[in-house]
């Protein structure tokens, strides 16, 4: 089963809409609440990343009987040094974003913590592709 959600860049008031939709779907599919929680937390972080850094993006969700695969692709500045971005507390967020309670530099590490597999690739000035896989059983 496939679903696609659009993510609008720089609109924090809508951040979380896509991950909430995925949550609803997983609840209907009778997925273990603990797995739902992990998945939704990682998707929410990824969604906020797109809102905070990119111009726009898509969240493509594919649900298989044994796993959920989510690809988040954005058009944006990209990440020059992914290893650095994976460090806890590293953040490029502007003071304005931090004021809103985002940008503590926990994004990618938190996604990794809450997913079973995580793949990330990025091209500077093009965009970032993030793949999150969580097993449902």
């Amino acid at each position, binding site marked *: *089963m496939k679903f696609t959600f659009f993510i609008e860049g720089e609109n924090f008031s809508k951040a*979380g809409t896509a*991950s*909430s939709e995925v*949550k*609803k*779907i997983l*609840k*209907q*599919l*009778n*997925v273990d*609440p*603990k797995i*739902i*929680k992990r998945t*939704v*937390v990682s998707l*929410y972080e990824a969604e906020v990343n797109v809102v905070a850094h990119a111009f726009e993006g898509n969240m493509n969700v594919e*649900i298989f*009987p044994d796993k959920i695969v989510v690809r988040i692709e954005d058009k944006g500045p990209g990440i020059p040094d992914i290893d650095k971005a994976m460090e806890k507390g590293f953040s490029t967020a502007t003071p304005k974003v931090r004021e809103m309670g985002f940008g503590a530099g926990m994004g990618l590490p938190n996604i990794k913590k809450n997913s079973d597999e995580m793949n990330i690739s990025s091209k500077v000035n093009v965009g970032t592709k993030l793949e999150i896989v969580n097993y*449902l059983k």
Partner: protein
Amino acid sequence: MEKAHFYHALKVVEEVCIGCTHCMNVCPTSAIRVKNGIADINKNACVDCGECLNSCPVNAIIVEQDDFSQIFHYKQRVALLPTVLLGQFPDDISEKQIYSVILELGFTHVYEVDETADILTEVTKTYMQKHHQERPFISSFCPAIVRLIQVKFPALVEHIIHLKPVIDISAIFYREKLKNEGFSDDEVGIFYVTPCAAKIAAVKSPVGEDKSFIDGVINMDFIYNKVLLSIKQNKSKELKYELNKHISRRSIGWTLTNGEASQYSGRCLAIDEIHNVIEVLEKLENEEITDVDFIELRACDHSCAGGVLTTENRFLAIERLRKRADWYHRNKPIILEKKEIEEYRPYLLENISIKSIEPRSILSLDTDMMEAMKKMEKINRILKVLPSIDCGACGAPRCQALAEDVVQGKAKMTQCVFLQKMLTKEGLITPQESFDISENTWGVKRFEKKNINDH
């Protein structure tokens, strides 16, 4: 699953219900459908919040209560009162008068349930230190909220504090006290005067307990009427009640918004009204709200002062309760005599925990994930042909709800009036068939010929 069958205090009086869909549209768990022109409540989904009762224009939804005369089955008859009861009466009626009338009605003891809030606050503090990994803590105070979390937010069940609410602590305290005074267990009857439907459901089908500690429930509006009637008719000859107690500010404010959240250190939130609560629970579940220590959640607007069985305007009631708290604080600032409840502290602490609270999601389409996926695909296909205006004319609150009902075999797609018109136009069903479907949803009466000139 804790029990196959859940007791609900909210009942639809079929003779009165006009099948108007008001309740169906406001139900926060989409538990209501209109069938045969009458509202039908799904017992698995209902959380007894009372939104339906508030929205009903003809008072067809009632709160079922126990027969009052049953109190006389017991030698010792204890009335457990919610503190909000005292806020219902005009200022010229005294606390002493109210208590006296309640005794005259046949009770042998009166006790305000929130008096045990002091003990619970203390135990909750230790509990939160001990189980710090379960942050944020959600209060177990409001039974409608506990049920809401069970059915809609199963991932949050483990955050509910596994301690008894004050109503149960007070009940076990008073029972034990009377047993120590020489009465046997079956001589003691404990009755709770309730400001809402959810507390009744909590007594009749408790969550996290094998059995309830309360023998019966009496609706607060019933007591309100009895007290006012007796006072207006000057029936009370003498005031039976001796006012010799101290109720703390904490106890009097306990059931009002922020009554609990104001007691604990750290980041504490207090949220009232069920839609506000749902909004916060969604965010909590996504971990959009983090770093919160304690959350007080109440289903009614302005907490228990807004309960469906209250009679006074909630703002006036709250003001009176605040005044009452101030009075106790000013006039009896120090508790002179040792409170009786202190002797029972060890006993209460021993019995204060509750067992596990099981999630029972109403959202999953099927226990088997493959089946659930098939059903979801079907629902999405059905939704494409439904008009998505959520008119409710099919007897379900939203197009989404009808699609789910169809897939679960609880409804037919042709209940949709838009589809009916399309099918009739294309000659796939006859006008008579279309009419019959509508009659099934809305009842025969609704379609009886009415002459406009008669009105």
